[in-house]
């Protein structure tokens, strides 16, 4: 089955951990992930600046490793990210901000990517939200 996975909750929320575990289980079960899309507070999971305490789960680091290892299409909504201070080098320069915190493998793009992923998937799985 083809899944599109959308994450709306911040990195510390239980639903964000469930999203990662679902994504890992989907691939382990032989399914396909069309795209990961991070929206609303979900953009914080893509931040390279999260520092988790040593004895706690570092979810952003796990996402980063998972996305890189599986070479997944991982999109962070640009409007949601700018509003929350999650910027790649290009946007940091464009808006003259002092730092970039969105290194590869993440890509910044628009909401059209969510719709395209949903259209190309058998299931749209959403984590977080209200």
């Amino acid at each position: 089955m083809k899944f599109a996975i959308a994450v709306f909750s911040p990195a510390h929320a239980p639903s964000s951990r469930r999203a990662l575990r679902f994504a890992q289980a989907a691939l382990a079960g032989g399914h396909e992930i069309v795209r990961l899309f991070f929206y609303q507070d979900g953009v914080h999971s893509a931040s390279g600046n999260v520092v988790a305490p040593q004895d706690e789960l570092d979810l952003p680091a796990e996402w980063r490793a998972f996305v890189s290892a599986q070479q997944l299409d991982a999109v962070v909504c640009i409007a949601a990210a700018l509003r929350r201070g999650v910027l790649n080098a290009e946007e940091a320069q464009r808006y003259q901000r002092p730092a970039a915190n969105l290194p590869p493998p993440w890509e910044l793009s628009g909401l059209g990517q969510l719709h395209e992923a949903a259209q190309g998937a058998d299931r749209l799985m959403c984590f977080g939200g209200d």
Partner: protein
Amino acid sequence: MAKSLLIISRQAPWAGPSAREALDIALAGGAFDLPLGMLFLDDGVFQLAPGQQPVQLQQKNLAANLQALPMFGVEELFAASSSLQERGLAADTLSLPVQVLDDAALAALIDRFDQVVTL
């Protein structure tokens, strides 16, 4: 055939960016001519309340942006009857032409769409 998507908007317009971000999903999909519906549920029905003055909170007027939905081809607009009643909102005062649905109709509505996203 394109998959249909129902966007369920559950947050008041003054409760952070959720209401606007739900609307943005609808407008983005409308720009691609996708079959979309939008349901205002729970505190989301406050987005339809008349006479709001968001300027008092240094906020933009979401109601003005909601008016763009039909122009973007998003004409399937719904509000939950029970949510309106609980909040003392009369259906004939709302700022957007929505179909007001009772709980049984809500279940049928959600069932009718291929995909659902709730913000």
